[in-house]
Each structure stands twice: as C-alpha cells, then as structure tokens.
C-alpha cells in the first residue's frame, strides 16, 4: 500500500538538503569584498566606462597592485551603492551626473562644492581626466561648410534645417524645449529618432542636425561638425574618478598610478577608443591599452581577454544557478508562508500584501538597495532579489490552492479524526499541489527573464552578452544571450510540465468519470 506521492512527508529532511545546497553554492559564488591589497575598479554598462575601468585596472596592475574590474554595474544608483558599500574602490564618473543624479544639486555646482559634499560620505572626486562627455549638437559636415555653421547660435538663422533628436533629449525639460528657447531656435521639422539611426541619417543627408554625446564612437566614422555651445547651455560632463577616500591610504601605489590619467585624455582619443569597442568590436582590454599608450604614454602588458568560445555555456550555467537557487529558496520559504496565510485571516492580509509590495519595487532600485544592505555586488544581491521576486506567485498559489479545497472535504478530513499534520501533508497539500506547481512554474519562467538583470550588478548570466551586445551594436552578441534565455524559459516550462506528472497525484489529473 503506497501513496503515489508523499510531498513533504519529511519536510525537515528536504529542508536540510536544500539549505545545504544553498549555502554551499553561495559560498562558492559570492566574490569576496575588496580586500586591503586588491583594488576593485567598477564601471557602468556602456563602452566608454568599460574602457576607462579597464585602463584604471591595467594601470594599477602595472604599478604592481592586485586589481580587478567589475563591469556593467548598471545604473548610477547601483554603481554608487557598490562604491559606498566598499564593493568597489573607484569608478569613472562624470561631473554632470554627480551633480544631478548623485547629489541632486540644482544649478551648476562647482567641483569644490561637490567634493565637500561627497567627503562627508567618505568619497572623493579626482580632477578631470581631460575630456567632456556631454551633450552637443552636431551638423552634417557638408551642410555646416555650406552654411558656415560653427556655433549653436548660428542655427537661429536657419529655421529650415531638419532636426532629429533622441526621444529623451526631445522630451526632457532641460533638453530641446529649453535649448531652443535659450538660443531662439525656430525649427519646425523636429522629430524623435533612435541614436544610432540618427548618425546614419545625418551621414546620408536625410537630417541636418542631431544631438550627440561628445565622445560617441560614431563621431569617428561620421565626422560631423560639433557646434560650439557659445551661450553655455549644456552642463559639463567632465570625466573624473569617483573613489573611496580610504583608497590612497590602502594602496597608495595603485592610486598614484591611476592619477597619472588625470588631464591626459582628450576627446578625440576617447572617441577613438570607443570606436574600437563599439564599431570595430574589439575587446575593451585592447582599447584600454591603446588609450593608455596614446594618451598617457604608458605601455602596459596586454591583459588577458576573455574568449567567447565557452562563454555561452558559462553564462547559461551561471543563469541556471541564479534561477535554480533563488527558486528553491523561494519555494522553501514561500510554501510555508502560503500555508500560514491560509490558516489565519490576519496573517494572510499581512503576508499577501507584503509579497505583493515586493513585486512592485523596480528591479534596479531593489538591486541598489540590496547592494547597500549586503555591502557587496555580484551573486549575493542578485540571488536575494530573484528570491524576493519569486515569492509572490508561490505564496499566493499555495494560499489559493489550500483555501479553495471544497469545504465538505476539508470537513470530512477533520471528521475522520486525522491529526492536523496528517491533514496538511496527506490531504490539503496534495489537493493544493496543482495550484502550488503552477505558482512554481510561473515564478521559474519569470525568474529566467528577470535573471538577465543580474548582469547589471556583476553577477553574470545571460544578461551579460545581451548587455554587451546592446552597447556595442552587436546583434550576434545579443542573440548569444537572448536565444539561450528563450530556450531556457521553454526548457523550464517543459521541466515543470514533467514535474507536474510526478508531484500532482494521479487522481487529480483524471478527466473521465468511470460511470
């Protein structure tokens, strides 16, 4: 006499196995915090930041320091949280971003003012590396020559020019609306366009004016005329190093070496380095070495470049790890929470609304918060975030599965004189198992998608090639992440359909009556 399934008959044993697995995997995956000897350099999720981060890493190594580079810390919130928590020691930033996104200071604060504010946080700002990566207006070189356009104010005399702008610049209050007012521009043909397409359109003469960032890689190829901001409308985005004030004390040699970059990089050199990565698809390790040679006259030994051959498999395995561990933990916590919610009206209100609330937190904000909370970047906060996002479908489906058991059957179980634990394990959970499995499946599939965001905090996974492909306009690279992710979602779905047959009792899967 045997049950087809006895889910959770010995929950203690299962819990231990999973917990052990969880701890072991975590211990193996979480990168250690920056130790005294090692300098941890961060960079944001775009090519210029990678190149600068890599240049800083190589220069520190050439000075004899241990250095590592955490790339793709996406969003200013996240990289700033990583710096404050000590997960990284230094990263390249821009003065305009510090003023606006980090300190949220109105107007145009001076470098000295920003320094004094950040000193209170234990952070410092270097002098400018030498170039500005800010907004500018660019004109087709032929049009510029024909009309003699040198400065933005020259545009006021030519309302017939066709303008195409990124949607963000078009809509921002401090974008086109203020700019056109500031300079008295009266163009009527103004439209939104994707940034990369704008360069093509400008080159082909389909548009006359576009907005650019002053170190865009495409400038090297299209060679537009950048108009002088003669009435100082645009804020400066001077490249600087944002660093922890304890870095010089901890590793003076590395810090001194990094400072050799200050004032050395000019816009054309940065544009050329960006073009190497974005247009020529060269690894940033190479671009950084070139930049160091050309700009700072520094010869560094060539850095090892991660090869792409086994990379897809590696990313996929890491992705599976992220999804598997966070999902297992969510099941381990979510199912008991769902059971508790089904037992008490008070608890159900509390648990379900909390789980629902978690779901509404924007993912990048949650990641930034977790980096601050855990004091580290990488797999740790990624797992916690994925765990939290996985909870709701599991908790809610467990709750619904248990509370929709027909009342006469719930009563029959009680009337039979079954002990409460037996009732839960032999009657209620098996009857709720189809709903619980559906919740797990939902969480798993959502999790496969959400885990691509782990790349933003240095946790790797299939988001990594997607992110890199997006930044370097490389469709092939995007597909290297997107295709395995889609296949993984399908595989997870298939695996759960299979698991359904094993977990959901046969009697609940019958459709026909034997009458």
């Amino acid at each position: 006499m045997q049950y087809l399934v006895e889910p959770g008959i010995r929950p203690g044993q299962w819990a231990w196995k999973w917990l052990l697995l969880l701890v072991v995997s975590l211990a193996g995956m979480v990168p250690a915090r920056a130790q005294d000897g090692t300098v941890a350099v961060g960079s944001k999720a775009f090519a210029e930041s990678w190149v600068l981060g890599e240049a800083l890493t190589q220069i520190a190594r050439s000075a004899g320091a241990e250095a590592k580079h955490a790339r793709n810390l996406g969003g200013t919130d996240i990289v700033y949280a990583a710096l404050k928590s000590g997960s990284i020691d230094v990263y390249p930033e821009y003065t305009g971003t510090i003023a606006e996104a980090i300190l949220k200071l109105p107007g145009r604060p001076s470098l000295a003012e920003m320094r004094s504010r950040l000193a209170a946080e234990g952070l410092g700002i270097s002098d400018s590396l030498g170039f500005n990566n800010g907004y500018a207006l660019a004109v087709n070189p032929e049009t510029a020559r024909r009309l003699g356009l040198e400065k933005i104010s020259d545009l006021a005399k030519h309302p017939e020019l066709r303008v195409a702008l990124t949607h963000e610049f078009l809509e921002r209050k401090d974008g086109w609306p203020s700019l056109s007012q500031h300079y008295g521009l009266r163009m009527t043909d103004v439209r939104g366009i994707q940034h990369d397409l704008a360069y093509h359109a400008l080159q082909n003469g389909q548009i006359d004016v576009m907005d650019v960032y002053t170190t865009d890689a495409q400038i090297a190829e299209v060679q537009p005329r950048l108009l002088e901001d003669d009435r100082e409308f645009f804020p400066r985005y001077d490249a600087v190093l944002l660093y922890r004030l304890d870095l010089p004390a901890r590793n003076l040699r590395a810090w001194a070496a990094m400072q050799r970059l200050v004032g050395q990089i000019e816009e054309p050199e940065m544009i050329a380095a960006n073009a190497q990565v974005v247009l020529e698809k060269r690894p940033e390790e190479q671009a950084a070495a070139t930049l160091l040679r050309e700009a700072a006259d520094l010869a560094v030994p060539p850095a090892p470049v991660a090869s792409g051959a086994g990379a897809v498999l590696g990313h996929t395995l890491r992705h599976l790890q992220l999804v598997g561990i966070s999902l297992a933990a969510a099941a381990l916590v979510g199912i008991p929470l769902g059971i508790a919610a089904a037992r008490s009206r008070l608890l159900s209100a509390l648990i379900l609304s909390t789980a629902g609330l978690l779901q509404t937190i924007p993912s990048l904000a949650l990641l930034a918060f977790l980096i601050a909370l855990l004091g580290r970047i990488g797999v740790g906060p990624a797992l916690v975030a994925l765990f939290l996002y996985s909870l709701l479908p599991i908790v809610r489906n467990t709750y619904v599965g248990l509370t929709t058991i027909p009342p006469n059957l719930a009563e029959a179980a009680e009337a039979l004189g079954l002990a409460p634990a037996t009732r839960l394990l032999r009657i209620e959970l098996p009857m709720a198992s189809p709903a619980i499995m559906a919740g797990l499946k939902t969480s798993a599939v959502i999790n496969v998608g959400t885990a691509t965001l782990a790349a933003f905090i240095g946790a790797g996974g299939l988001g990594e090639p997607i992110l890199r492909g997006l930044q370097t306009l490389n469709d092939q690279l995007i597909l290297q992440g997107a295709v395995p992710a889609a296949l993984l979602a399908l595989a997870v779905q298939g695996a759960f359909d299979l698991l359904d047959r094993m977990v959901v009792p046969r009697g609940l899967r019958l459709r026909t009556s034997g009458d």
Partner: protein
Amino acid sequence: MLSLRNLIRSYGDRRVLDVDRLEVPTGATHALVGQSGCGKSTLLRIVMGLLPPDSGEVAIDGQPVTAAGAPHRQIKLRHRIGYVIQDGGLFPHLTAEQNVTLVARQLRWDPYRIDERLAELAALVHFPSDGLARYPLQLSGGQRQRVGLMRALMLDPPLLLMDEPLGALDPLIRARLQADLKEIFQRLGKTVLLVTHDLGEAAFLAGTISVMRDGRILQSGTLRELRDHPADPYVTEFISAHRTAWPE
C-alpha cells in the same frame, strides 16, 4: 446511547438550533427530517464536534463530549464516530482503498489487519474488490457512496452520523443502497443518526423520526405516531407533502 440536552447555536442574531432534548438508544436508528435550513445538518456537525454549541451538552454513552476539548481527545472521540456525507466526501487524490484505510494507517494498524478489514467491509457493502484501486472520479455515484460508508465503518465505531448520504443518487441505485444500509444497520447494531429530507427513506431506515423546523424539533416518534397524533400542523403538512405512487 446518544443524548442531546438544551443545545443552542446562533449565527449572529439568528438562532439556527434550539433543541431541548434528543435521545437515540444504543443500536437504534433515528432520522432527522425537515426542509433545507431547518438545522438538521448543524445538529449533526455539533455532535461530530466540528462546530461548538453556544450552550448545551452532547453525551455519548453518558460521557459528555464538547467541541472545546483537548485536540487529542477530540481526535479520539472522532474515531468512535463514523461520518458519512453526500456523495461519499471522498478525497479525489486517493484511491478508494487509500480513502478507506487512511485513518487506520495513521493509527499504525498492522497491514494484515488493514487488508482483512478492507475485504470484510467490501463484502459488507457489496463493493467490487477490483474497484478498490480506482480513484473517486473513476467510480459511479453509488460506488462512491459505498466507499464513503466503508471509510466510516473502518474503525468499527459504535455511532454513525449520516448527512443526506443518498442525496445525489438516482432512484434505483438509491433504493438498492437503502436496502443495503438497512441490512447493515441491523447486522452491525450501530447507533445511527440519519439526516434526510426524504420521509420515505427516514421511515424505511429509522425506527423513530424527529421533524425539525427553524432549529427546533417539533415532534419525535414513529411515522405512525407522527401521522396519527401530530403535535403541530407543520408535521401533518410535512408528512402529507410526501406522495406515493399509489392512490390511497
């Protein structure tokens, strides 16, 4: 013997049960009849300990039982009562056999004893042994009810509570089961409290009948007593509402 004293139960302002006294002697079958909502199922659930009364007392063989007792006592008490509900109340994820033997296995009965009892019960309720491995959805309504009866009888409880046990069956199967039930009751000598809305069924299976209305027992007695000496016009109305196929 089952005896009830001054049982009162209300939902908010509404008093759904108000029974002064009801006694079912050991080995007798008593039926509660009345319209839907008259309180007969509430009464059964209070006896079962599924619902606590506001006040009053239920005693089995002179021992008072209350819903507020310690959990392990509550469970022990329930093992002494067999409970049968409409359509069997079987758990869909368990086979017929698993449904019947669930509690015995919780009590760690010897497997041979379980098998023996199972065979005995299948013979008693005329349930085909090849149906034991089937799931409730694979059984007919009558078969499900027979399995429900086996489950209630598994531990050989002295008291059986039945709540509209044959309510969902078509007339022919219902009549067969009624005949089988009557035989089983007589053979086993159980004390039975049966709830039904069918007066014919009540009269066929039970020696005495209580007519209930609005939570109260209007009258208890044999069918003949109810017909010849009704205590309330409603009793007469209820009895005459049940027509037979034969003109009187």
